[in-house]
Structures are given as C-alpha cells and as structure tokens.
C-alpha cells in the first residue's frame, strides 16, 4: 500500500534524473503507472463491498504524532478509483497531446507528483498527513498550471492558484490543530470512534470556520472561485485531471470525510447550503456568457462543485447518495468534455465556440464521445447523468418544507444552465457545417488513438453506468455514501423511479436546457457595463491587495534597506535609543549614590583630560594621520587606566595591540588620499544629536548599573580555585588558558580566520575593471 501511494513520488524522482528517456515515444509507458495502481486497488473491492475499513500504518515521526497511517474505506475507494482510473487515461492522452514537447518528462514528473499526493490525501488517516499531501497537491498544481512558463498569463494564474489554495492550506492546518487539541488525537479513525464529541467542544465554530475556508479555497467555492478559470491556462489534460476530476474535489473529499464528525449541525448545514447553492447558481450563470470552451467548462465545474458542497450540506440520506453519485457522474462527463476540448484545440487551433462547427465530419468518433458526455451532463434518461440528476432532485425534495420550495428551483435552474454548458462544449463544435476559418482541415490529419480513445471510454462508461446502475452502486457509490453518512445507507440507484415529481423536474430540465441551447447565443458583453462589477469581484480585490502589498514592500524595502550603511547604523541607533531609553526611564528611578566611588586624584584627571582631547581630535581632525595618532593616544591612556586599577595583563595587551594597530593603519592608510567628502551642516547636526543621545544614555545606564549590586559569585569561584585547582596564581591567565581554555582555543581559531582572510584578500587578484 505504501508503495502504491509513494510510487508517484518515486516516479517523479526517477523522472527528474532520467527524464531524457521519457521525452519521446517512451512516454506512453508512463501510463502504466496509474494503471497498475488502479489494478492494485481493484483487489480491495471485496473487502470494501463487505463494509470493511482497511488500515495500514508505518512509523514515520512518532514523536510528533505523525505516522504514515492510511485508511481505505468506501469514500477513499471512490476517489482512488477516480484518481488512478482517470489518471491512466490522462497519462496516455498527454503522451500524444504534448508529443514532442521538450519538457514532456518534467510534465510527467509533476503529474506523478500530483497523483502521489492526491492518493496520499484521500488515503491518509492522520490529519497532519492530510495537510502535507494537501499542500503537495497545491504545489504540483502550481507547477502544472505554470507549465507553459514562457507565458506571463500562465505564470500569473499559477501564482494566483498557489496563493489561494496555499492560504487555504494554512486555515486547514489551523483547523486540524484545533481538532487535535480538542480530541487529543490526529487520527481520523480514532475521531470517528466518538463522532459526536467534536460538536460539543467550544472550539467547534472555529474548527468549522477554518475547515470551510480550506475546503472552499481548494474546491473553488465563492468567494475563492476565481483561481479556477485562471488555472485553465494549464495544458488541457491537466485541466481535465486536476481542475475538474480530482484535485478540486479534494475540498469536497474533506467535507465528506468530516461530515460524520462535524455535520448535522445548524452551522454546518446552513453554511454549506448557502455557499454551495450560491456558488452553483453564480458559476452556472457565468458559464452561459463565456465563449471559450475551457472557460465554459471551468465555470460549469465550479458550479458542479457548488452542487456537491450543497448536497453535503443538506446531509440527508438522499443528499449524501446524490453527492457520492454526482462525484462520479461529474468526473466522468467533465473529464471527457475537457479531453474533447483538448482535441478541438489541438486540431482546430481555437477554442472559441463562434468559430467552431461541423467537426463531426473530421472526427466522427470524437463527436460521438462528445455527444455521450453532453447527454450525461444533461441528464438524459439512460445515461448515468440522469441517475445523478434524479438523486439531486430527490435530495432537494426530501427536505423540510421551506427548503423544499427554495432549494428545488435553485437546483433546477442550475441544472438547466449546466445542461446548456454541457451541450455547448460537447455538441455545438460538432454540429452544423464547418466554418470558413476551418476549411483547410485539421492541423494533424491523422488523429492518434491515444487522443480519442480516453474520451470515448469516459463517454461509454457514462452510458454503461446509466444502463446498469447496479454496477457503480455496488462497487463505489453506496459504500462511499455510507462512509460520508457515518452509517450504512441502503438506497440503491435505479434507472426508473416511476412517474413522479422527480421525473417531471428532469423533463423540465432537459426541455428548458435544450431550448436555451437552440435559442441563445452568447453575445459579446459590453466591457463598460461589467467594469464596476469587476471592481468588487474577489479576483480583482485579491489582485489589488497583492499589487498594493508588493508596492508597500517595495517602498518599505527602499526606505529601510536602501544600501547606505550610514542609514542602517542610524536606524539601529535611533531604535536602540528609543527602546532602551523608554525601558530605562519608565522602570528605573534615577538615583545617584556616590558613596562607593573613589576620589579623583590629580594624575587621574590628567589622563582623563588627555583622553578627552584625543577623542575630540580624532573626531574632528581633517588629517587622517592626526586621527590615527590621537587614536593611539586614546589607546595608551586607556592602557594607563588599566595599570592604575590592577590590570597589568590588560595594560600590556592593550599597549602591544595599540602599537600594532598604528603600524597597520600607517602602512595602509598612508597610501590612501585625504578625506574629501564633507557632509552638510544639517546632517552633521542630526548625526551629532543621535550620537550624543546614545552616549548619554550609555553613561546613564552605566551609572545605574554601578550602583546596583552585582553578583560576584563567578569571580569568587575563579579567584578561590585558581591555585587550588589550576596551580596558577595569575587568575586572569588561569581563566584564559585553563578554566575557559576551550573559549581561548576558539578565539585563536578566529584570529586564524582573520589572518587567512587578510591573506586571501590581498593575494586575490581582482582587477579594478571587475567592479561591475
């Protein structure tokens, strides 16, 4: 099992190193990977059908509570089948679709990475593990959307998708952590053992909120929906796989997964119904105005996702079965439509529905696949879509009074619009006569079977499942629905429910949708009327925020990181003055206690006076030699201070170092020109003020520190034990070479590094022209 999950990652890794092998025709072989995983999971069907839950556990980071715990139940099985089954078709399809692309190997690496993460996501039992895989799907989606990385729009869309889904991921993590704190476990299996527990926790609202933000962002629910149309910049197989059949359903998966834990609560039900309901209507309405095939599909996908959220929100037995069935229905027909769109784009060179028509004459088999998918999406009887649509109406009709009369029309309108979208993409390009711009024939006259077989399989499955609903029901839908519901549901899918309201609604849907399709053509909407609406759209607001953040960062960086060393020092100093000064004056009461201080003797005063004069000279002199000499005078005076106050070692060191520093300075600076630059008076005044306040502050702090009692324990220990333990009488030296010998060792290493630095800096030959 772990191999099955991780094989995607392994494949990505192998492709990273041996990519050249799979750039050409051999890429077809890669399709065997999802196919074999698909076959592997087929073996679990008997167990799943018996209602068992299969778990696997591998130790990974037990200290953090993260183990590779996997859990296969009906819901996971449904998704695994979609991921690997559709994945296999996509792998084969892409081999022909992107044939000859120079980064084909990279494409497959991303795709494998995605497949692995998605499998991990739907199989993981540990919430933290879910989060990791969740983020991985976002990242692989980012790579795939931006696959045509020479296109600026592509890059922008990829970033947008990453930003939205990535942000959502953080919310998800927050939700998981809160759940973990409340339940003391990160295992979903253990949480499911006590399903009602979380609902009584005080953190419930917060958990729910974070979970919703995470799921909605991934599943493109309003107001996070706008990244999905942008994601259509990805190559069409990717759109079909990630952005319609699998990844965007990760949010749905999550809601379904946590439905038994968190659902059946007013907050849960209402939020999901309102968000899902609004999204499905909003997006379906949008899809009607689009002319680009992929845009239509993108919006109808959002709408379908809204429908799923809506159904999970309703949460009744009917709704859950409808949701489980609709996941499958939608994946089958929408992936098919995407693949067909890909073929059209590939062969006709356009995706604009106004410029397409009559393509059935080119590719009759593709047209057949398109027809099947469109019929299924329309919910025409004897297709799987019909069953799905029936269940949706059943679900809305089996709610309580108020909802019954509001939700049913909502679903009806959405379905009519979705039917239109399905027909527009699946039938319209193939109907009628070939327009003039396409009179030259297809771009690639011999259509590879790798392109047309996958959509035909998907279309065929839609019909097959429609004719024999018992098959998908027994294999997938009923078990998935039971997992979502939390207990076993017995509600078999049927082709025929008899003459009732549901059938009437289905009929109305088909008739109205077909009428819409035949009577309405999308007009070019005038840009001006849409403008003000555009401003309030979430997409615009996000872009606006992003742009302003970038500008702010730019100015902020320019102000603080301007590259002038002086301004850094100034900023740091001013900040220090402010911070220390505030702390100092607000907490320490200034008092002066001179009782412990020594008298000022005459020679001390002389040394002091010399130091002050030398310091002032160093600062204000215009000759550098003078500055160096007066600086060495400062050093020597300090040396005297050390001598007076019982530090002969320091005095000696200071003296020798001072000598060497002067030698160094004279050796080097002798060759440099005079200082020429003079700052203006205003700047000097400002710097002087800052420097003065800093010095004053340090003096005040020193004064206070001197008065405060100090802890002398360490000094006493060293002094008392210098001879007893280390057989030395010069305590300073004993500390250096014995007590703290390792420190001195490191210090000599630092000196060595400095010497090596000097040596290499001078021996390294960089010519002046290398400056830039």
């Amino acid at each position, binding site marked *: 099992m772990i191999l099955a999950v991780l094989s995607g990652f392994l494949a990505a890794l192998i492709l990273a190193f041996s990519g050249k092998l799979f750039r050409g025709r051999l890429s077809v072989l890669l399709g065997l990977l999802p196919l074999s995983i698909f076959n592997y999971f087929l073996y679990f069907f008997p167990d799943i059908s018996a209602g068992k839950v299969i778990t696997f556990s591998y130790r990974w980071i037990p200290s953090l509570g993260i183990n590779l715990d996997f859990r296969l139940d009906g819901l996971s099985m449904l998704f695994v089948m979609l991921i690997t089954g559709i994945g296999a078709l996509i792998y084969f399809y892409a081999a022909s679709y992107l044939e000859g692309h120079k980064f084909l190997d990279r494409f497959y690496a991303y795709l494998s990475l995605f497949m692995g993460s998605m499998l991990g996501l739907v199989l993981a039992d540990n919430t933290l593990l879910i989060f990791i895989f969740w983020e991985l799907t976002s990242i692989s989606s980012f790579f795939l959307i931006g696959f045509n990385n020479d296109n600026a729009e592509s890059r922008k869309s990829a970033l947008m998708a990453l930003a939205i889904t990535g942000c959502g991921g953080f919310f998800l993590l927050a939700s998981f952590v809160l759940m973990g704190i409340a339940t003391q476990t990160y295992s979903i299996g253990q949480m499911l053992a006590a399903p009602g527990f979380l609902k009584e926790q005080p953190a419930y609202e917060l958990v729910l909120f974070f979970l919703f933000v995470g799921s909605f962002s991934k599943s493109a629910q309003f107001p996070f929906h706008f990244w999905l149309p942008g994601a259509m910049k990805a190559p069409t197989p990717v759109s079909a796989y990630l952005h319609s059949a699998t990844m965007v359903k990760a949010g749905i998966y999550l809601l379904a997964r946590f439905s038994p834990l968190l659902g059946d609560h007013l907050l849960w039900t209402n939020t999901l119904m309102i968000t899902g309901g609004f999204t499905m209507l909003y997006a379906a309405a949008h899809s009607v105005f689009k002319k680009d095939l992929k845009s239509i599909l993108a919006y109808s996908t959002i709408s379908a996702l809204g429908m799923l959220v809506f159904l999970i929100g309703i949460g009744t037995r009917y709704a859950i079965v409808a949701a489980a069935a609709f996941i499958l229905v939608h994946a089958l027909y929408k992936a098919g439509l995407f693949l067909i769109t890909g073929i059209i784009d590939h062969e006709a060179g356009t995706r604009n529905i106004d410029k397409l028509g009559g393509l059935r004459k080119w590719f009759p088999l593709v047209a057949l696949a398109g027809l099947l998918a469109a019929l299924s999406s329309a919910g025409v009887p004897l297709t799987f879509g019909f069953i799905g649509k029936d269940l949706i109406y059943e679900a809305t009709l089996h709610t309580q009074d108020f909802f019954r009369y509001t939700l049913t029309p909502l679903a009806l309108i959405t379905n009519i619009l979705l039917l239109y979208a399905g027909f527009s993409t699946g039938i319209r390009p193939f109907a009628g006569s070939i327009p003039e711009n396409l009179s030259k024939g297809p771009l690639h006259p011999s259509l590879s079977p790798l392109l047309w077989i996958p959509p035909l399989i998907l279309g065929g499955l839609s019909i097959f499942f429609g004719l024999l609903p018992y098959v998908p029901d027994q294999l997938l839908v009923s078990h998935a629905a039971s997992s979502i519901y939390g207990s076993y549901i017995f509600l078999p899918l049927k082709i025929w429910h008899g003459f009732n309201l549901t059938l009437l609604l289905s009929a109305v849907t088909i008739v109205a949708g077909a009428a819409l399709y035949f009577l309405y053509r999308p007009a070019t909407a005038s840009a001006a009327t849409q403008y003000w609406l555009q401003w309030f759209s979430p997409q615009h607001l996000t872009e606006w925020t992003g742009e302003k953040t970038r500008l702010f960062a730019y100015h902020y960086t320019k102000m603080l990181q301007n590259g002038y*060393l002086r301004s850094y020092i100034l900023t740091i100093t001013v900040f220090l003055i402010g911070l220390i000064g505030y702390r100092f004056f607000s907490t320490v009461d200034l008092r002066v206690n001179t009782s412990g201080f020594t008298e000022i003797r005459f020679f001390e005063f002389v040394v002091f006076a010399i130091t002050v004069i030398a310091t002032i000279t160093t600062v204000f002199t215009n000759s550098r030699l003078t500055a160096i000499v007066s600086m060495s005078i*400062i050093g020597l005076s300090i040396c005297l201070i050390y001598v007076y106050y019982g530090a002969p070692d320091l005095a000696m060191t200071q003296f020798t170092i001072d000598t060497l520093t002067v030698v160094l300075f004279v050796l080097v600076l002798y060759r*440099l020109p005079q200082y020429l630059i003079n700052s203006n008076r205003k700047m000097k005044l400002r710097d002087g003020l800052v420097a003065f306040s800093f010095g004053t502050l340090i003096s005040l702090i020193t004064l206070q520190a001197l008065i405060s009692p100090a802890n002398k324990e360490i000094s006493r220990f060293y002094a008392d034990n210098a001879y007893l333990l280390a057989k030395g009488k010069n305590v300073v030296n004993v500390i250096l070479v014995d007590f*703290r010998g390792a420190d001195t060792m490191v210090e000599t290493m*630092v000196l060595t590094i400095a010497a090596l630095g000097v040596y290499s800096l*001078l021996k390294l030959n960089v010519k002046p022209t290398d400056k830039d």
Partner: protein
Amino acid sequence: MEYLLIFLIGLLYSSGIYLMLRKSMVKLLLGLILLGNGANILIFLMGDIAKGQPPIIPRDASIFTQMYADPVPQSLILTAIVISFGLQSFAIILLKRVYQMTKSDNLDTLNTHEIDI
C-alpha cells in the same frame, strides 16, 4: 574617578557612533575602534575598579588574603582586545581593497541603489 570614566564611556560611544555615521570608510573604521574601546572600559568599570590589587595570588599564599580586582571582566576584555585586533586588521585590508577597486573613500559610491524589483 568613576564619574570621569562614565563620562569617558559616553564620550567614546557618541564619538564612535558619530564617526560611523560619516560617509568616509576610514572614519567608519575609526568609529568602530572607538566604540570598542568604550565597551572595554564599560566592562572594566563593571568589575569594581579601584579596589586596588591585580588579581594575582601573592607568592607566599595559595588563596587571596587581601582585596583584589575582579578577574572575570579582565579576561573578557583581554579576549576582546585580541579579537578586535583581528577584526581591525581585516577591516583595514578590506578598506584598502575597496579603495583599490573603486578609487573612492566614499561609502555611498559602493551603493547599487535603484534596483528595480
């Protein structure tokens, strides 16, 4: 004497900062050295100066019998002095190299500002 030293610390700190705020690289270096000196005296002062004797145990004894200067700040400063020598020499050479390449003592000419992001 403590007063004078406290004043001296303040003076060295402000001179150091003032010099570091200049445009000249040489002044930057001088400022750094002054700041280091100020810090050394500050640490030294914290060890209660003026208590007289160096921290050396008398010849005929194995422990201190009289007052002695605090050895810990002294060993800290000794380390600091030696390390700062390493730092200074490296900085001086760096300065020399920069000057060789840019023919300027002005720190601002090293700046590559206005990089468009």
